[in-house]
């Protein structure tokens, strides 16, 4: 399954890219699993997605919890807690 992954703000700076197109293995079917999958890349990825880091996620531009499912073609975004207003 193929998804688009977006990164914003400090996450974007730390992983060094705003987006990537990603082919996922069959066992990566939730937002939480995708987070672990990215973390396994090591280095900055390991630090950004460490379990104690407050990372937020959205699927198709809707804020979701880690258990949320991912489908082929989804847009998945990771970002720090928001600070607008």
């Amino acid at each position, binding site marked *: 399954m193929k998804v688009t992954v*977006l990164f*914003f*703000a*400090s996450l974007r700076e730390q992983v060094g890219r705003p987006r990537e197109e990603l082919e996922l293995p069959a066992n990566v079917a939730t937002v939480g699993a995708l987070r672990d999958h990215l973390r396994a890349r090591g280095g900055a990825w390991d630090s950004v997605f460490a379990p104690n880091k*407050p990372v937020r996620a*959205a699927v198709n*531009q*809707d*804020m979701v919890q880690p258990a949320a499912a991912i489908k082929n073609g989804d847009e998945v*975004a990771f*970002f*720090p*807690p*928001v*600070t*607008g*207003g």
Partner: protein
Amino acid sequence: MKVAIQREDFDLGAETRAISKNPKIGAVASFVGLVRDVRMSLEHYPGMTESALRKIVDEAASRWQVMDCTVIHRYGDLEPNDQIVMVAVASAHRGDAFQACEFIMDYLKTQAPFWKKEHRAGGATWVEARASDDEAADRWK
């Protein structure tokens, strides 16, 4: 119900007048958030930002009598004293207008995908989210 994400400044007076034309409207409560001492830039998530704000406005309109509403949030580079965000809610009565306006601001603070980066002499740093904002949003649950 108007939601706008823009670089440009806004005029609170013109925006509130624009939502006050219905003669059933007796009250407009509004809020403006301003940059304090520090230069900053605001990043957002184009597409999601507008839909997140629309959801917050719809939720407010389901809880209180909201006859019209305008939310404008700026992004890009901002200077001290610049306006960042405005929310204005028009209703028949002031209680509804105040509650809906404060609700929208509290939810916007925790749900709308904006991120502030402050530019100080020592360098740039991303603003950390505040627990008090989560608490303010939790009041409405």
